[in-house]
């Protein structure tokens, strides 16, 4: 019980400790005063100083992956269950400093090693520890989206462990392609805390993409283990083959789906080139589609697209679990989550600030595929689903949404001033 409590309280500190040698140094300094108290005799003090000189100041303690206890009362996880889960995960996936790839899983170990571990350079001068350098401060060492500064951000950084990613190019809720994750890294997510990492080399970016996939596959395996061991009382010790067959391989298969069957899952926007008259007509048609009841756009985004629809209580899947029916329940639930409840705001199109990107292709994909993990549903066709809108209609809607952007609001004006493109939307869709 003590261990659990400690874990909760020190979530952020744990993560910070692993971030840089400096953080480790400060941890060492905290241990100093007791030795000075004992050191009343000058000899002891000298001995301490000599020992420190010989041993060095840094005592690097490699960080661990934190067990995913989101939404669980830690007291309900028996120590033996916790150990069993942690052990099998370490055997299969290694540690934050030394990642492993379970056999047959589509992950590139060489790239992972580049992203993992403490920040530094190897003997050939190649940079290591890229994830800790660039990502962990928000996304956490474990990829839990609860790094030291996560609480200050809105929306929160992504918790990779659920295997759900918002901005993809794949239908049917399939996992993102490597190129989708790469796009997010390259461009960042405008209007969120996620910056662009485009100055990094292609190889570094590929390493980070691979590491995100690694944390996600590991995270989903962990969720499977928690379900099996804690909720379903799977007999211990766990058999490695069982975890591989029922935990790891199915997750790996989901990640391969869109990469292996792109014709079935991947949506490639083909932007129409429109004359100004055609664009005006498309915007008109889009407006009609937006306001009709087929896809219920106005419910969340409001009649004029200002994000003020009648659905006011919206949460993403990561926050939905924190919401009880009564206020008191919500308060009770808050104990079992790292970050407080955060409501979701439907986009105000007038701001012209789209998290998934403001190009017509981006808006098209958001309408077509929906935004996984949020209430925004997929309006386009997917395997098994005819969809409420077809491609042409989605382009019309895209034109309408973009025609609203950069108008009216303070943010919209700022964005327009900064980009120097007051009607980027229309020029974006129009034939030049």
């Amino acid at each position, binding site marked *: 019980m003590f261990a659990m409590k400690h874990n909760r309280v020190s979530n952020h500190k744990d993560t910070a400790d692993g971030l840089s040698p400096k953080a480790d140094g400060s941890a060492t300094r905290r241990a100093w005063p007791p030795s000075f108290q004992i050191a009343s005799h000058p000899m002891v003090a000298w001995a301490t100083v000599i020992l420190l000189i010989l041993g060095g100041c840094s005592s690097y303690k490699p960080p661990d992956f934190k067990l995913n206890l989101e939404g669980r009362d830690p007291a309900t996880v028996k120590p033996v269950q916790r150990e069993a889960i942690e052990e099998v995960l370490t055997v299969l996936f290694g540690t934050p400093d030394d990642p492993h790839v379970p056999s047959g899983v589509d992950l590139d170990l060489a790239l992972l090693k580049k992203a993992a571990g403490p920040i530094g350079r190897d003997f050939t001068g190649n940079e290591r520890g890229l994830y800790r350098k660039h990502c962990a401060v928000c996304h956490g060492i474990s990829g839990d989206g609860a790094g030291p500064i996560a609480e200050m951000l809105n929306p929160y950084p992504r918790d990779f462990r659920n295997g759900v990613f918002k901005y993809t190019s794949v239908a049917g809720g399939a996992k993102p392609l490597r190129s989708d994750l790469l796009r997010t890294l390259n461009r960042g997510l405008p209007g969120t805390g996620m910056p662009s990492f485009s100055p990094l080399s292609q190889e570094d970016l590929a390493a980070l993409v691979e590491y995100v996939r690694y944390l996600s596959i590991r995270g989903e395996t962990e*969720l499977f283990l928690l379900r099996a061991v804690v909720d379903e009382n799977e007999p211990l010790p766990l058999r490695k083959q069982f975890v591989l067959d029922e*935990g790891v391989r199915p997750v790996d298969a989901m990640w391969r789906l869109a990469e292996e069957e792109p014709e079935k899952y991947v949506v490639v926007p083909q932007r129409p080139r429109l004359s100004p008259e055609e664009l005006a007509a498309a915007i008109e048609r889009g407006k009609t589609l937006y306001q009709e009841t087929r896809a219920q756009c106005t419910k969340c985004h409001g009649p004029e697209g200002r994000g003020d629809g009648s659905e006011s209580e919206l949460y993403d*899947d990561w926050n939905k679990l924190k919401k009880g029916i009564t206020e008191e329940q919500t308060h009770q639930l808050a104990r079992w989550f790292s970050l407080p409840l955060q409501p979701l705001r439907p986009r105000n199109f007038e701001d012209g600030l789209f998290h998934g990107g403001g190009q017509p292709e981006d808006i098209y994909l958001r309408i077509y595929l929906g935004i996984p993990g949020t*209430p925004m549903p997929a309006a386009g066709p997917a395997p*098994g689903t005819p969809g409420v809108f077809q491609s042409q209609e989605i382009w019309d809607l895209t034109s309408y949404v973009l025609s609203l952007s950069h108008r009216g609001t303070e943010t919209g004006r700022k964005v327009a001033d900064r980009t120097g493109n007051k009607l980027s939307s229309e020029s974006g869709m129009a034939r030049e």
Partner: protein
Amino acid sequence: MDSASGSESGRQVFRKHTRPWSRRQWLQATGAPLVAATSLPLMAPWHYVAASEHYGGSVRGRFIFRGTPPERKKLTVDKDVDCCGKFDIRDESLMVDAGGGVANVYIYVRSRDVPVCVSVAESSARQVVLDNRDCIFKPHCLAIWRLRQELYIVNSDPIAQNVAFAPLGDLPANIVLAPAPGDNTEATWRFRRGQSQPFDIRCNYHPWEKAYLLVRDNPYFAISRDDGRFELAGLPVGRWELQLWHERVGHLQLPEWSQGRRTLTITGEDIDLGDIPLLPRDVGIGQ
């Protein structure tokens, strides 16, 4: 194509079987799916059947509520009031009929790798239907044998509906269905992974709408009907662990059903468990 992959999935399943098999059994195990798959061309490539000699018996019973069931609360209907306001939409988390029967209790075989009898495989429907009707999901509780069945989702209401779910380790869905009558009011969904317990299905437009779905790798599951009765039909011979689950409490803990589990031996005769009493505290009332 059907026959090749059909026999392959059959073989995979039997390789996992614990006891050594006679040569005849092996032949049947690999031969039966081949024959079944070629004789029924409509079958999907992931079809899965086994030798019929395993047929044992059925397990039946009835869940009875002991005590006064709480009144079903009226749910807040504040969206699409023009359409949904006229229905009496009430909480469905505990359904007790006039005779005391408790509906919507899941009972399913928890054991892994249960061989499936041909008769059971052939008699199960290809689709499980989830209807959006009168501004609620119908039925409230569903179960699906994912290797043979797919989920057919349809909207019967004159308003757009949304169906969203995120099964553990499977792909999430967030589907819009256009208002009925009209085009694009239906969808089908296939599951890629079995689940050890049901998950919830929600509608993001109408927060009161809720349903539950259990996805299994075998067809041995039942949901108690309005009168509380259930039947697990055509269980194979063997010792199987059953699991009870109810949406109010998850695993339904009862006397003789520790953690909602009980092991039964199927020898070839039907088993009648009789009336299984549920006290209010068993379903989380008065705690």
